Structures are given as structure tokens and as C-alpha cells.
């Protein structure tokens, strides 16, 4: 049954993005919000708003009982979790189901299977998706790591089985370093995730991060091609493109088919992303993880395919079959997204909440802004620092880059420091223009360009 009233259990730009999709489908929108977000744009624009708790996320956007209660109070029949917060919380998906609410996303079981990185690797291998050489399952003792090392060699990455999003990863370059880092990694995994299970993976040097967007209805799965998110700082993406630059068509076909196989293996429902490491030198790609939610960088895929992913998610959650066949999904042109954060590049990217004193947003051909800002808005200190997603599209990459440079020149955010200046430098950097980058390229570049960032 199609969704009639949707509770949005998220905030800021993604809350507004979901509202826009819902409104175009004629769905009534109720915005859940913390006390800190009373004056936010998503709250102002919703048909109805419901306060779910005090500012700290743990007591509001992460408070499952408060959100379920709010959904019942406002008569919602579905909940969209956005990204972050409860988007990949299997218990929340289960709790919605128990209360008769539609969770806009996959089942709790799928979320849990993909959230456990060891289980996800096992499923990928079963689906014939190449994985990075490493341990078959979780390992607890350093002695077990020795035999894995015969297959991986050094350098090797130590990862938390319950981790994700780049958290809790350590790199060991020799046996001594491994012995030293092992207990640390275990203690940290236990403290951060309540699960001390670890696994080892070969470190692929100079790899690019390429990910495939998939969409499933619980029976069929299609892909919407790939994105390249190789520009990262502290394993957080700062710049994303679609399609991936210089990707051989034969490799693209194999990559996208592999992502579809994995999603089909778990009868995937909703929008998801299968992330890979891509070794451009050899053309090999390796499964990293699957994210069972809409992603921050989804707009670049929307721009090149012309498909509204959030609308498709809502239609599928309402019981509709996949709205497209694979043959109907094509790529036109090139799109780039940059994340403009409330951080001070001159002070090692220290987050900086505060009041947006003035705001001038770019426009014109091929420019899209996903943000929930206005002049006078007070950026609260309680949540992440993403302020604006600036997306440009062109008939090719050169035009998308030219539009990005032009749009960044038009953009002016007054009152607080932002990372817009970083992107003005990156868009002119030869390595970025030639896409001669990999996931560890940006951090050393930032070190050697410190003066320019001040």
C-alpha cells in the first residue's frame, strides 16, 4: 500500500531531500526533530513537525522509542531514516515492523548481515564478488593472524568486525607493528562497538574508491552505475564523481554485475551501495562493504541517470515493484559533488558551529545545491559538520569541472569558516583535473598545501 504519511527521522539537508521526494509523490510529510532543530528549514517546510527529544543525538535522533512514539502520535505509516543516525540500525528497522510502520530501507536482517563486516565478506565471496585477500572470518588471537599473513603479506590492515565507515582501521607494515597494534585495535573495537572481533585485509596501495549504486524491490535488483569517491580525508569522502573517471567499459560491466549479484543474494530492498577498492594499474577490484541506506553522494548518480533515487525508495517501500528495468538506465554526461563542511581548514579542519551571517548560493546551468541553510541560521554543535552539497553536471567531465569552479566562485557563506576554500584549490589542482588520485592522496597534499589553506 502506497505511503500516505511519512515521518522523517533525520535532519538538515537529507531531511529536506526526502521531503522534496515525498511531496512530489503526494505524501504528507512529518518532520521529527530535536529541540536544537526547532528553527531548521526542514521543520519549517514540513506539513507537521514533532519534537522527539533534547539536542544530543542519543536522546533524539538515536532514541528509538521516542521516534516510534512520534510516528504513532502523528499517524505516520512509514519512517525514512536518511543516512547516519538509525539508518543502518537493524533493531530500529525491526521495531518499525513490529509497530506496523514501513521502514524505508531493507529488512533488519539485511542491515545486520551487511553491518557485520565479516558476514558481508562471506556473502560477497559466496556471490562470486572478489574480496580483498584476508582472514576468512573474525580472529581473536594474534597467532591466528600469522597464517592469514602468508596470503596477504605486509602492509596489512586490522579492521573491527563490527566497524564501518573507516572507523577503527589500523595499518601494520611489519610483524612488530602488528603485535603492537593488535591489542590496541581489539580494545578499541570492544569499547567502540561492544565487539572485540577483528579481521585482517591486505592493504591495496594507491587504490581508488569506486562504488556501485543499486536499487532493489526485494525480488529484482538493478544498478545505476558507479561513483568515484577517491578524495578522502581521514577516510571521510570530500569529493565524489559519477561515472568513475577512465573506467574501462569491460571493467565497469563486471563491477556493476558483481554489485547486483551481492544485492540479489540478500534479496535487497531499497537503495544501497556496494563499495569497492579499485586498483587502476591491474584493473582488479575488491569488495569493501555494502551500505544499506541512501548515501550522502547519491545526487551525482541522480544527475547522470536522471533517476530520483529517493522517490524510487519511497515507491518501493510503499509496495511498488522496481520502477525501471536495467535497460532503461543510462548515463548522460558527468557529475561532481563537493561537500562543504562547517570546518576550519586553517585549524586542521576543527569543526566550527555558529551563525550563518550571510549566504549567497550559486545557480545557473548544471548546478544543484542540496542544503538546508538560510541567512541567520544557527548551525548547532551537536551533529555532523556537513553544510552544503554542491553538485555540478556537464556533458563531459571538463564541463562539470568548469561549472564547479564557476559555482564555487559564486558561493559565499559568511559568519563561520567552511571548507569551500579547500574545494577552490582542489578544482584547480592538476592531480584532481587529471584524476591522478587515490584514497591516500589528499592528506599528504593537504600537508604540503597548508599555507594556501590558511
Amino acid at each position, binding site marked *: 500500500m502506497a505511503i500516505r504519511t511519512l515521518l522523517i527521522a533525520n535532519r538538515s539537508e537529507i531531511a529536506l531531500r526526502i521531503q522534496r521526494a515525498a511531496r512530489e509523490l503526494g505524501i504528507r510529510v512529518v518532520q521529527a526533530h530535536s529541540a536544537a532543530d526547532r528553527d531548521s528549514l526542514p521543520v519549517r517546510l514540513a506539513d507537521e513537525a514533532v519534537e522527539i527529544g533534547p539536542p544530543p543525538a542519543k536522546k533524539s535522533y538515536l532514541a528509538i522509542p521516542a521516534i516510534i512514539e512520534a510516528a504513532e502520535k502523528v499517524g505516520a505509516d512509514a519512517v525514512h531514516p536518511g543516512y547516519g543516525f538509525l539508518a543502518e540500525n537493524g533493531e530500529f528497522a525491526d521495531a518499525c515492523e513490529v509497530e506496523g510502520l514501513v521502514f524505508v530501507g531493507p529488512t533488519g536482517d539485511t542491515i545486520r548481515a551487511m553491518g557485520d563486516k565479516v558476514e558481508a565478506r562471506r556473502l560477497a565471496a559466496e556471490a562470486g564478488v572478489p574480496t580483498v585477500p584476508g582472514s576468512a572470518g573474525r580472529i581473536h588471537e594474534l597467532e591466528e593472524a600469522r597464517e592469514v599473513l602468508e596470503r596477504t603479506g605486509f602492509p596489512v590492515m586490522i579492521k573491527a568486525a563490527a566497524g564501518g565507515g573507516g572507523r577503527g582501521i589500523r595499518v601494520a607494515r611489519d610483524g612488530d607493528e602488528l603485535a603492537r597494534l593488535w591489542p590496541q585495535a581489539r580494545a578499541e573495537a570492544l569499547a567502540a562497538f561492544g565487539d572485540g572481533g577483528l579481521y585482517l585485509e591486505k592493504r591495496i596501495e594507491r587504490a581508488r574508491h569506486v562504488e556501485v549504486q543499486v536499487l532493489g524491490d526485494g525480488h529484482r535488483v538493478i544498478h545505476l552505475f558507479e561513483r568515484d569517491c577517491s578524495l578522502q580525508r581521514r577516510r571521510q569522502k570530500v569529493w565524489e564523481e559519477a561515472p568513475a573517471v577512465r573506467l574501462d567499459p569491460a571493467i565497469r560491466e563486471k563491477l556493476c554485475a558483481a554489485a547486483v549479484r551481492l544485492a540479489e543474494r540478500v534479496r535487497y530492498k531499497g537503495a544501497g551501495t556496494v563499495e569497492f577498492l579499485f586498483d587502476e594499474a591491474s584493473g582488479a577490484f575488491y569488495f569493501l562493504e555494502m551500505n544499506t541506506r541512501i548515501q550522502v553522494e547519491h545526487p551525482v548518480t541522480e544527475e547522470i541517470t536522471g533517476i530520483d533515487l529517493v522517490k524510487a525508495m519511497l515507491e518501493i517501500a510503499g509496495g511498488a515493484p522496481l520502477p525501471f528495468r536495467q535497460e532503461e538506465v543510462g548515463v548522460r554526461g558527468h557529475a561532481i559533488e563537493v561537500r562543504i563542511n562547517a570546518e576550519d581548514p586553517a585549524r586542521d579542519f576543527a569543526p566550527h*558551529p555558529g551563525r550563518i551571517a550571510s549566504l549567497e548560493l550559486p545557480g545557473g546551468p548544471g548546478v544543484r545545491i542540496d542544503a538546508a541553510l538560510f541567512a541567520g541560521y544557527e548551525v548547532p*554543535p551537536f551533529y555532523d559538520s556537513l553544510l552544503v552539497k554542491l553538485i555540478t553536471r556537464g556533458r563531459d567531465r571538463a564541463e562539470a569541472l568548469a561549472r564547479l569552479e564557476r559555482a564555487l566562485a559564486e558561493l559565499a557563506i559568511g559568519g563561520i569558516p567552511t571548507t569551500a576554500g579547500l574545494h577552490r584549490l582542489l578544482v584547480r589542482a592538476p592531480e584532481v583535473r587529471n584524476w591522478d588520485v587515490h584514497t591516500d592522496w589528499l592528506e599528504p597534499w593537504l600537508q604540503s598545501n597548508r599555507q594556501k589553506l590558511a
Partner: protein
Amino acid sequence: MAKKEILSPLPGTFYRRPAPDQPPYKGEGDAVAVGDVVGLVEVMKSFNEVKSEVAGRLVRFLVENEEAVMAGQPLAELEG
């Protein structure tokens, strides 16, 4: 005896413990020296130590653990 206060250097969420499974940095009645860490303030997912700029005995905390705080807001009261 003079009353002194430790102020929050930043806006955010205040924590009394370095991690959920560890003991608080300071308890009521504890001695505090200049530079001692009394808690953390989380600002946009980054954690900042709150160091005391005054010395004395910690009389009481003025905010709860995991409570929202503003920059300059008193976090704890000291005497001595």
C-alpha cells in the same frame, strides 16, 4: 573560601567520562589542579578535553553527563 567555576570552552555535548566504560575524570570532592581534565565536550563528532584553568576542590557538577552545553557555560563549581 572563594568559589570558582570551570567554564565550557565550546558549545556541544558534555561528557564526564573518557569512554562509556571508563570511570569519570573527576568526582565531587576531588582535588583539581590547573590543567587537569574534568570532562569532554563533543562538537560535531569531535571530542575536546575540558581542562581546568583554576585549582581547588570540586564541589559539584552544574550539568549532567551527556547534557547540551553552551560556550562559556559553567560546568563545575570549585572551592579553595
